């Protein structure tokens, strides 16, 4: 039998093949360009943020010295005799953030450990969306919750000394902590789940209990991922506006007592924005000056968090 008999159909006749592009594909290039432009918009956004912040901020510091701004202990920019010491806002932010972390870190890590090490797939499939719902509740609703429920509750059950004021950093911080539990939990869980099963099996092979494996094997191995989660949580707490605006009050207050009313950086920006400052006034510029400070702080946090996550991925992925 020879092949010649069966070559009648199909195939491409020899010599008739050209491998060149029949006509240029301009469409592909145009599409590619458009897609690139869409991606580039994100860079434009960052540039936009920096530009929007920088011009009024520079103008602000032409009128107020940087040193006074960073070290002054009184913040009253909208008064007839304005004071531009940002420390009270920074301290307010710090107090609320610390309270939030005290709530969020243990709860978030507890939830993450359970989801990653103990929960069956079915349990996880139910619990994770519920946690996501917690992350999706509007912050203004959380603020309402802090003001009308948590604060009265704290006042009722307070045992030592004076109870918290009607507006206070404590209830805002607690509720903010609840809000960022999902942030801590989901990122930490990712990190813990990424720890190779071999490593854990090694722990079990030595006769360790689940708890011992979780705390001595998984936890240290996932540490940079967990730290990244916490740093990101800090960044979210520092940047959160509505809860503090609603529940922590509107008075700048250089105090470390969370029972008192305080104003955070974000709450100041929000409050000043509501006040509709005339463009070009010093009040308008303070929004941008405080905004710049907030942006720089969160930028550093985010950079640290992104770097830690990357480091973690390099090790295990």
């Amino acid at each position, binding site marked *: *039998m*020879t*092949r010649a008999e*069966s*070559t009648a*159909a*199909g*195939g*491409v006749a*020899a*010599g008739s*093949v*050209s*491998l*060149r*592009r*029949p006509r240029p594909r301009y469409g592909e290039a145009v599409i590619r360009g458009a897609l690139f432009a869409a991606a580039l918009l994100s860079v434009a956004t960052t540039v936009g943020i920096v530009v929007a912040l920088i011009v009024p901020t520079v103008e602000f510091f032409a009128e107020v010295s940087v040193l006074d701004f960073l070290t002054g202990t009184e913040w009253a920019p909208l008064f007839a005799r304005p004071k531009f010491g940002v420390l009270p806002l920074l301290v307010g932010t710090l107090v609320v953030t610390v309270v939030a972390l005290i709530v969020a870190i243990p709860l978030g890590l507890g939830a993450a450990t359970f989801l990653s090490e103990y929960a069956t797939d079915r349990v996880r499939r139910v619990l994770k969306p519920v946690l996501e719902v917690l992350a999706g509740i509007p912050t203004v609703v959380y603020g309402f919750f802090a003001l009308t429920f948590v604060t009265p509750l704290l006042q009722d059950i307070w045992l030592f000394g004076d109870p918290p004021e009607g507006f206070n950093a404590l209830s805002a911080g607690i509720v903010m902590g609840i809000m960022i539990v999902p942030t801590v939990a989901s990122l930490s869980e990712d990190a813990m789940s990424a720890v190779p099963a071999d490593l854990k099996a090694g722990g079990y092979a030595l006769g360790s209990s689940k708890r011992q494996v979780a705390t001595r094997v998984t936890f240290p191995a996932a540490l940079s991922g967990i730290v990244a989660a916490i740093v990101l949580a800090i960044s979210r707490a520092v940047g959160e506006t509505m809860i503090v605006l609603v529940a922590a009050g509107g008075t700048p207050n250089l105090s470390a007592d969370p029972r008192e009313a305080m104003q955070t950086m974000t709450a100041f920006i929000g409050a000043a924005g509501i006040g509709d400052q005339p463009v070009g006034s010093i009040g308008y510029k303070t929004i941008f000056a405080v905004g710049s400070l907030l942006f720089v702080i969160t930028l550093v946090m985010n950079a640290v968090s992104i770097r830690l996550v990357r480091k973690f991925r390099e090790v295990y992925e």
Partner: protein
Amino acid sequence: MDNSPSADDAPTSADAPQPAATGSGLADPALHLDTPTRAGRREIPEQPKDPVMLLRDVAVYYGGFRAVKDVNLDFGRREITALIGPSGCGKSTVLRCLNRMNDLVRGARVAGSITYHDQDLYGPKVDPIVVRRSIGMVFQKPNPFPKSIYDNIAYGPRVTGMKPGSMDELVEQALRGAALWDEVKDKLKQNAYSLSGGQQQRLCIARCIAVNPDVILMDEPCSALDPIATARIEDLMIELADRYTIIIVTHNMQQAARVADRTAFFTAEADATTGERTGLLVEYDRTGAMFHNPRDRRTEDYISGRFG
């Protein structure tokens, strides 16, 4: 590689197994070609006549790493050529160069020349997309698109701008060509994922022939399939070789023995100084000749199961 012409030495059925005579080569009795082989049934000229593709001193680099070197091969028209060898020997790498799928790997570079229909496959004006329209590929794992069976077949003709008189007819032809029509003719609108693994792979072959290629590359097409599905694909390959040039990578020597007209054996060797392992072509011959009478010690060791 043996390039000495010897036209007189026409292959005959004498190429069939003669274990007693050759002695070496077939340690494994299973290799005794108890299934009728294509090599046994067809006359294969010693040298490929009218080769479709010529590879000269081909080497493939990934970045600074040389994956395979010194490949000289001629692929015969409407023949089945098998590329075999231990893992890491560069056989799949070579296959992927033939329709420029290696372009998709970052840092991949081809040295030497690959000539296809008198054109340099890596020439400056050559469009890889056009290349892939005439040199199709079937992959290791069946990879149907998550669409209906019909749309899987029609996809190629649609994207390549073919204007068939009737798409339905074209789909039917392609499915018949891949011996799948009878099994799926009543469920063309069903998702391709509802098919079995073997059917999926035949669907991928049908999808490939729907764009009427010249050459079909197959990268271990049966490695994810059970023996029955494998046998069907092998039969199909032999059928398809009447119309298409087929180049198949396989890790399965029996498979090469069963279907291939010619076989190229690759191996990997470590560089004496750097220790870097590079694949290379050891021997290229008619399948029967190679399995019964390998010329190279390394080939003999491999097919007799001493390594790999």
